[in-house]
């Protein structure tokens, strides 16, 4: 009797516990103290952002300015330092997504497709949008009927740009000069408007970085620490897939040529460290340490470069391939300010997102601290490039126009530089990209065990399968 009593008690207890857990197991329950309008009549907007502590301090300032201008709104910020736990927090937030939050554009499709984001097109004036580079915000249009990304008829607008990249080539002027002097190269610095071809780049590096300069300048000298894959592929008139990310294009000659160009920087020209050496020091470390002449960098790197680099440096457009129709194309992209579809304070939330994306003062601060280039066309093409406010005097890079040329697309026949969204932006998730890179590594592309064409042909069906699966995730 006693025995059964106790046992029943235990079983009952365990079951209650399990059900208690089950009841709140779904993350979908509404937050009891849902943000909204507080007794004072003020609207409370939850904001979530991610970045360094420096950035946090800036945002604190932007937000208090915003609240000064909008005394009826209170912004409650949450600032996150770590990328993966921030993403983890967002994906498990359920209906409790913050009203306004920063989101990696590589995750955009998944969120917009799940109806998690608010269509803000009816809240934001076209005039306001027109002040920004079209490439910066048009990518945040989406049509959920035909799963089409980008601006089109019936598409809604689901985000505003935080910034826009881009990721271009940077070089160490002093190291460049020292090497040039040793080998007697008199070609001068590379052009900021006329991109080098793959071959020109490889040969320039081979001229500057060889046995002679390794003996005289420094023994761990390299031309470049690592070459960015997407920049090479895009700039050789190639892509991973077609416009809708439906069919693989990795076996096309332009594609494999671009990969081979990167591999040959090490295998043929010996101006880039082998893959194994890249594991011990990445391209960024070699560049900042002064042992690599070239590197890839974005506007956000300026903060650290200004603080840490003891040499002069400048930027140039990414190299262009030899393929027909090839244009120098760097990847652009970054994070979006999105508004939660479940937000109870939609108007105020959109107001905040718009403010952060287009407010002159916040845009100015972003370039002044070396965090981003302005989203605003007017400010970027004059104030920023020419430094009319004198905020960048004496600061590298001198050729700031390279950043702007990259994001503003092809304007006329003389414009040879453009940008394109990161490949992961076009797909439902990003794992395919890591898988592909991993496959290239394990198959020995960088060690020369196999050619790019062989590897891509072997991987094509798997790659297509990954694309198919991501397509199937939509809707």
């Amino acid at each position: 009797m006693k025995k059964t009593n106790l046992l029943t008690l235990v079983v009952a207890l365990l079951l209650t516990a399990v059900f208690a857990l089950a009841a709140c197991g779904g993350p979908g329950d509404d937050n009891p103290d849902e943000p909204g309008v507080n007794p004072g009549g003020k609207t409370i907007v939850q904001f979530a952002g991610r970045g360094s502590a420096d950035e946090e301090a800036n945002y604190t300032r932007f937000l208090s300015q915003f609240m000064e201008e909008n005394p009826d709104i209170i912004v409650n910020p949450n600032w996150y330092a770590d990328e993966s736990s921030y993403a983890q927090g967002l994906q498990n937030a359920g209906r409790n997504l913050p009203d306004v939050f920063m989101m990696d554009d590589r995750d955009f499709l998944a969120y917009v497709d799940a109806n998690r984001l608010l269509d803000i097109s009816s809240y934001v004036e076209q005039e306001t949008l027109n002040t920004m580079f079209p490439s910066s915000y048009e990518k945040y249009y989406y049509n959920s009927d035909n799963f089409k990304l980008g601006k089109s008829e019936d598409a809604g607008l689901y985000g505003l740009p935080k910034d826009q990249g881009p990721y271009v080539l940077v070089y160490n002027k002093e190291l460049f000069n020292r090497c040039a002097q040793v080998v007697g190269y008199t070609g001068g610095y590379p052009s900021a408007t006329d991109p080098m071809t793959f071959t020109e780049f490889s040969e320039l590096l081979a001229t500057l970085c060889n046995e002679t300069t390794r003996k005289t300048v420094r023994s761990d000298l390299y031309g470049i620490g690592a070459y960015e894959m997407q920049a090479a592929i895009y700039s050789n008139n190639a892509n991973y897939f077609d416009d809708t990310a439906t069919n693989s294009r990795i076996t096309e000659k332009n594609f494999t040529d671009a990969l081979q160009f990167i591999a040959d920087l090490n295998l043929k020209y010996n101006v880039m460290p082998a893959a194994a050496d890249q594991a011990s020091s990445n391209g960024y470390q070699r560049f900042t340490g002064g042992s690599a002449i070239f590197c890839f960098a974005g506007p956000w790197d300026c903060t650290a470069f200004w603080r840490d680099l003891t040499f002069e440096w400048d930027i140039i457009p990414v190299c262009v391939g030899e393929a027909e129709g090839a244009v120098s194309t760097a990847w652009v992209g970054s994070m979006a300010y999105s508004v939660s579809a479940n937000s109870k304070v939609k108007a105020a939330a959109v107001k905040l997102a718009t403010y952060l994306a287009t407010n002159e003062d916040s845009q100015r601060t972003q370039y002044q601290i070396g965090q981003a280039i302005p989203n605003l066309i007017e400010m970027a093409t004059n104030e920023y490039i020419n430094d009319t406010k004198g905020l960048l005097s004496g600061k590298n890079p001198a050729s700031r126009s390279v950043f702007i040329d990259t994001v503003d697309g092809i304007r006329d026949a003389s414009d040879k530089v453009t940008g394109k969204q990161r490949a992961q932006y076009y797909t439902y998730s990003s794992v395919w990209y890591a898988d592909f890179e991993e496959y290239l590594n394990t198959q020995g592309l960088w060690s020369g065990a196999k050619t790019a064409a062989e590897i891509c042909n072997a991987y094509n069906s798997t790659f297509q399968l990954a694309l198919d699966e991501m397509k199937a995730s939509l809707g």
Partner: protein
Amino acid sequence: MENTTIQSNNRSETVKKVTHIATYTIIYILLIGGSLMMFFPYLWMVMTSLKTNPEAANTLQLTLFPKVFQWKNYVEVWQKVDILIGLKNTVLIEISVIPVGTFVTAMAAFSFAKLKLIGKNFFLLLLMSGMMVPYAALLLPQYRVFSSLNMIDTLWPLILPGFFGNISMMFFFVQYMRGIPSSLFEAAKIDGAGYFAQYVRIMLPLLGPALAAQIVFWFVGIWNDYFAPSVYLSVNEEMTLQVILGKLNSSIGTGNNLPLVMAGAVLSSLPLYIIYICFQRFFIESMAITGIKG
């Protein structure tokens, strides 16, 4: 005849002495070599933290000691990341979890070791089986529960489970308590002491060294925990020391600055090393007292 015996005795004595010396030489070589191997990485960590970045990552020439001791690295780390906030959060978890958790754990262990309970072994095995479930299998649902309770980016997900006790600690206590004579409790029972009183007044004081040792181990475990805090905490104000250290490696500007990362590692470990040196008796000696049977 006698002479030879003495001689051979002498010889065997000498042989014995030589083997003795040889043995000890080998023992010392092994031990000192091993100790150096244990210690050298730490020395290198401290030395690297005092170098300039180019000096630390110099591929051409490696040196152990910095040319000029860069004490400013520590100042820079101190300014760059909020070690004090990390310390505060870590300590907050420690002081909320350990007293409550230890009390609950020892109470359960007392019950398992000394009280009559139907299905005792079943319950004990049940709880012990929890140690075998990989944390990775539990983290995802727990994360979603804590998320729905709005507890992400608070210390609660790291504190709450601790309130319900620590199973490996409990197992240890059960073993230890079984060695304490039951007559003590019988006597108390006759004096009219309740079970709770028996636990608090008799058992707890008797736990002495075992309690100290186990608390120290749990303390170190919480201090160095990384996986769960890194998943639950992403707001700067709520990070523990270990999470801050992890971020130091990736956060902008310091990610590629080896001396700063090493300085951060030294700073975040320092409090624990001080505790370790002061309380090393508890760390090392008390293992022996706590009843591990050979």
